Each structure stands twice: as structure tokens, then as C-alpha cells.
């Protein structure tokens, strides 16, 4: 009995010491996981997840402080990718953070804009140009559709307009699959 305790204690001390030493000796800084998560997020910077941007959300996911289903612009596909990366189960989008919408851009009604610059300050990607007391306009290709410019506008002159399909952006549809009726509905 005594011997057993002695041996186990000895083992614990030796291995513990070795591990402790190694932990100090071989410490490594940095966390590449955040970068990988951030690469999956859509970079809308909309803050619907409850964090002030995509990077902070990525950091929160990496730390385990946030769930993976809080990003409406990323949609189910984004959640699938995050689940794959982190080896977690897929969860459908959390309703409290919003719903997946078709991609749109903000458009400023130039008749009503008073040039207050509040939307310029709100835009996370500097996609609105203009100066004080001058009309503002949205640089459409740079707009992420985050809707953050909508609430600050005192005259409600900003609206979201879905991006339409053109011959150039048209996508071939999933072939009509005649075998499995359920798949046809899905497609």
C-alpha cells in the first residue's frame, strides 16, 4: 500500500515537474485560430452578432465566449464552415441575432439628405463619401449592406436596395433532378 502510494506520488512528481518545466520552457504566443475564423466571417461589420465587428466576434468564438450561429449575413453556409473548422455540430441561425437577408446595398435619397455626416461616421468600411452640409453618397461596390447607417440618419433618407441579377451575375440553376422529389424542392 505504502509502496503504491510512493510509486504513484513519485510518478506524479516527476511527470508533473517535467510538464511544468516544458510548459514554461516551450511557451508559445499567438492564436492562429482567430485569423481562420475571421476569414470565414463575411466582413459585413454589421455588429448583429453583438460584437463591434467581425474580428471581435472571431476572437470571441475562438475563446469560446460566443456561439457560432450569431452571424446572419454569413447564413447557414457560414455556420457550416465554422462548424467544420471548429469540429462542432451545426446549429441553425440564432433568431435573436436576425435573419439571413438577400444581399443589398444602402442607397441615399439625395433629395432628402441634409449632409449631417452621421452616416459617414457610422459606416464601418468608409463606403459613404461626402462632407458636412453637402450631399452624401454611397460607394455601392464597397457597401457591405450592414445597415448601420440607417438608425443614425435624422431624416431617414437611406434605404436598403437588394442587388438585382444581371446577365453577368446570373447563376446557372441546379439541374432539375427528376429522381428524388425531395431534392427537387430543395433545389
Amino acid at each position, binding site marked *: 500500500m505504502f509502496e503504491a502510494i510512493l510509486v504513484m506520488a513519485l510518478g506524479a512528481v516527476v511527470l508533473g515537474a*517535467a510538464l511544468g518545466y516544458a510548459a514554461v520552457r516551450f511557451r508559445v504566443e499567438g492564436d492562429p485560430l482567430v485569423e481562420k475564423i475571421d476569414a470565414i466571417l463575411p466582413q459585413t461589420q454589421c455588429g448583429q452578432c453583438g460584437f463591434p465587428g467581425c474580428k471581435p466576434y472571431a476572437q470571441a468564438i475562438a475563446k469560446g465566449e460566443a456561439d457560432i450561429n450569431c452571424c446572419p449575413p454569413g447564413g447557414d453556409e457560414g455556420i457550416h464552415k465554422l462548424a467544420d473548422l471548429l469540429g462542432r455540430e451545426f446549429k441553425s441561425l440564432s433568431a435573436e441575432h436576425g435573419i439571413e437577408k438577400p444581399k443589398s446595398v444602402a442607397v441615399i435619397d439625395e433629395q432628402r439628405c441634409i449632409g449631417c455626416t452621421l452616416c459617414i461616421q457610422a459606416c464601418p468600411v468608409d463606403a459613404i463619401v461626402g462632407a458636412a452640409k453637402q450631399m452624401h453618397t454611397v460607394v455601392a461596390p464597397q457597401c457591405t449592406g450592414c445597415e448601420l447607417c440607417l438608425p443614425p440618419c435624422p431624416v431617414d433618407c437611406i434605404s436598403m436596395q437588394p442587388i438585382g441579377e444581371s446577365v453577368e451575375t446570373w447563376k446557372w440553376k441546379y439541374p432539375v433532378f427528376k429522381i428524388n422529389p425531395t431534392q427537387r424542392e430543395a433545389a
Partner: protein
Amino acid sequence: MTSYLFIVLGAVLVNNVVFVRILGLCPFMGVSKKLETAVGMGAATTFVLTMACGASYVIDRWLLIPNQLEYLRTLSFIVTIAAIVQLTELVIQKTSPLLHQVLGIYLPLITTNCAVLGIPLLNVSLRHNFLESLLFGFGSAVGFTLALILFAGIRERLEAADVPIHFRGTAIAMITAGLMSLAFMGFAGLDKYK
């Protein structure tokens, strides 16, 4: 010399740790979704298992048996393996970030791989000497890697298959593992051939 070869081949094919001994199923099911991860897990396991077999042989032979403490075998083996895994991870993380990126997340998983405990215990019951223990550990780990890689190949294809909804995911993977096990039964008797 031939007997050593037989130990390795036997461990890889005839008594494949996954398909015949049915050990180490959690990582077998868990990290076989993609080929790259399967290769990483296999490599990490091969390294740890060989090390664990050597270390546990030393502990058993020079610490437990002289002190008649064989009943502590399981306990002390678990502790040793856990320590080896952790140590390996720390060292790799520092010395070779690249390797760590490949093996990184799988290393801690190995601690819970029952194959890593099972093989050293089998070594004891099969009365293998030090070299045989190492070879048996290595062979079993190669068998594990082989199983993992083959399974990953099939699963990558299965992912796109039109599997009935109730059998998707783990269910069909278990059936596949069963059928693979059946195929490996074909090797039965090879190690007993005279």
C-alpha cells in the same frame, strides 16, 4: 527477424487495432471526415503510441514488476501516456510550429484514445520484450493510420452520396466501419499459417 516482421504485419493487417480489436473507435469516427486530418491524426498516433509502448515497458519492467505493483499497471500507464502526449504537444508546438499546425489539435485527443492504453497492456499480456513492444506499438499505430486513411477516403465520397436521411452521418459511418471490419476478417488465419 521474420518474427519481428510478423509482429508488425500481424498488427497492421490481421489484428488491425480498429477493425479486429475494435479499439480507438472515437478518433476513428471523429477525425476521419477529411483525408488531411486523418493523415495528421495517424501520424500523431503513430508517434505517441510507439513512445507509449516503450515508456510503459520501461515502467512495467523496472518499476512495477520489481515492486510487485502489477495492479497499478492501468493507472500508471494512463498517467504516463497522458504525460507523454502533453509533453509531445508542448515540445512540437515550440520546436516545429509547422508540424504542430498539422498535428496540433489531434494530439490532445490521443490521450483519450483507448488504443494507446490498450496496446501497452496487450504488450504485457503477450509478454513482448522491449523491441517487440516497440514494434507491436508501431505496427498497431500503422494499422490505425491505415484504417483511418481508408475510412476517410470512403467518407469523403460518402459525404456526397444519396444516403437515406435517417442513416446520414454517424449511422452510415458505423455501417461502413462494420463492413470494412468484415473485409479485414479475410486476413484471419494468416498469422497462424505454418
